[in-house]
């Protein structure tokens, strides 16, 4: 009885297990695509485009279907993309390298949307400059762009992370946490930065405008899916530039779009415009192309991969920051050319600039 039980059941179970657990994205032509995005000033256009039919219009133009899904949890949206449930996701340049690329998912940055120029900031209580952070506990989301900003801020005055004590704190609790007595230093991003800046004892000692162009917000897509379906990339670029042109225009329609995006991100038109001021948004595709093709991007990605390697985030077995290859426009490769997992391309943004969509 025991033997027959095992003989029959195990192979059967292996088949069931394989069929249930393995559902990787197949790299072939398809017509339905899933896009994930989360609430952040530079990504609100995706939600607005979905709500106002811009997404469907561009999808129809290329004869495809694009499902746009909002995630309340940013990290979960990236994890879902990495697991293969989504074809594209909104992500920062650093997280694109540490999560999908380090997870072996070849990822291409289709759109370089903006970079943070004040949306991320370091706050102190009772201090005047970043050097006063020495010896304090610092509340931040560990391994996020906040952590990177802290490393850059400490570096700017010759300090290192050994001089502070990092405490991992969930982002929804930042504003409340800052008002408790044992929190004296914090690194976070908008909309929390705007809230904390209004508190009486908060002193903003460093922000992302001091490292311009290093924290970049992207729309990335699975490279295999994109290569097999370039129309998906074209549609994404079409959606993006139509929406940001609208949202940055000084017209009643533009104001309405900003008000709607403000409401969707828990603030109003004025609050949203304040966040936009701290964001270097590339409404002009030619500017995005110039930024992506410039040599500065290589310097930024070198800093980012050195930071990630130092924190052990470039795969646990990485022996140097060259473990993962990053391909830049023009074919330059940073790191391992045999293991390229993150690619920057200007192709789709260039088509938008040329009016070729």
């Amino acid at each position: 009885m025991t033997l027959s039980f095992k003989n029959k059941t195990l192979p059967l179970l292996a088949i069931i297990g394989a069929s249930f657990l393995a559902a990787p994205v197949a790299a072939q032509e398809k017509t339905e695509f899933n896009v994930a995005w989360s609430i952040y000033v530079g990504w609100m256009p995706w939600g607005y485009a979905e709500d106002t039919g811009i997404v469907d219009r561009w999808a129809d133009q290329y004869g495809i279907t694009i499902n746009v899904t909002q995630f309340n949890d940013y990290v979960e949206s990236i994890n879902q993309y990495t697991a293969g449930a989504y074809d594209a996701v909104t992500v920062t340049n650093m997280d694109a390298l540490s999560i999908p690329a380090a997870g072996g998912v070849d990822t291409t940055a289709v759109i370089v949307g903006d970079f943070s120029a004040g949306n991320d900031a370091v706050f102190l209580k009772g201090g005047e400059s970043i050097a006063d952070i020495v010896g304090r506990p610092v509340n931040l989301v560990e391994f996020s762009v906040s952590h990177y900003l802290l490393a850059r801020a400490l570096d700017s005055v010759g300090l290192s992370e050994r001089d502070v004590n990092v405490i991992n704190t969930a982002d929804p609790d930042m504003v409340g946490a800052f008002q408790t007595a044992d929190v004296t230093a914090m690194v976070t991003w908008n909309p929390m930065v705007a809230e904390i800046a209004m508190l009486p004892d908060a002193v903003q000692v460093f922000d992302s405008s001091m490292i311009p162009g290093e924290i970049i917000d992207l729309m990335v897509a699975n490279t295999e899916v994109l290569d097999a379906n370039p129309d998906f990339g074209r549609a994404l670029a079409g959606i993006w530039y139509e929406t940001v042109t609208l949202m940055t225009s000084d017209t009643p329609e533009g104001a309405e779009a900003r008000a709607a995006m403000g409401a969707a991100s828990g603030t109003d038109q004025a609050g949203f415009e304040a966040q936009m001021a701290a964001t270097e948004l590339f409404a002009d595709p030619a500017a995005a192309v110039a930024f992506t093709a410039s040599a500065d991007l290589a310097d930024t990605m070198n800093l980012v991969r050195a930071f990630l390697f130092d924190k052990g985030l470039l795969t646990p077995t990485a022996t140097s920051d060259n473990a993962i290859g990053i391909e830049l426009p023009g074919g330059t490769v940073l790191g391992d050319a045999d293991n390229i997992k993150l690619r920057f391309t200007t192709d789709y943004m260039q088509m938008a600039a040329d009016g070729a969509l």
Partner: protein
Amino acid sequence: MRLINQRLSPPALLALKLAPFVLLIVAYLAGSAARLTDNPADKLLPALSSMATAIDLMAFTPDRRTGEYLLWTDTAASLQRLGAGLGISTALALVLGIAIGIFPAIRALLGPFVGFVAMVPPLALLPVLFIMLGLGEISKIALIVIGIAPIMIRDMAQRVLDLPREQIVKAETLSANSWLVVWRVVLPQVLPRLIVSLRLQLGAAFLFLIAAEAISSDSGLGYRIFLVRRYLSMDIIFPYVAWITFLAAMADYGLDRLRRWLFPWSEMEVGK
């Protein structure tokens, strides 16, 4: 023969006991192999070998930054919080539970209140706790206490109320006063139940511990899981989950042995 009267041979019994575990492992290995064939760097269902590497890195290699062995510092931090939370809850349950169960005035004063507080979802209180008690250890321990103490108090009080009235009347006819009844009649009968109650709350206590550590911390088992979740390191998360399960199972077993050792008479009650 009817199914309910079936007698299983020892090998069959063993096979049935092991079957769910084997099924789970085989299903995992099959899924993992399938995903790894497709993408050798897949993080979702890592191979056992990468989990072994991760365990070695977390448990037996000093951390590059701090020089500490992360698994052990995490375990120590978590067990301290858990121990404090369980200890306070158990003391509260013992004192308040018996008082509510035996003294009508205290029952009137606290019974409905504790019943009401027990219905507050503790995780919903978490943001309030962090503001009021800060982000340090106190708020984490407080969450565990708020989560499990009311239920343990109610359980204790109900056990006291369930004691046969005749026993208490009998003690009174032997001229015992209230305190002596508590000491000689109530306490010996409800103490074993206190340990059982504690065992049943272990799972909930771990839940609240991990929830609190996920919000703000710099060490702990829950902290580590939520930290590495950020870059999808299932090779660390799976061993940590297994370790937490093992710790909880050991605590459960240990508490049961403790009950039998401290209160041998409680075994005689089984199946009465």
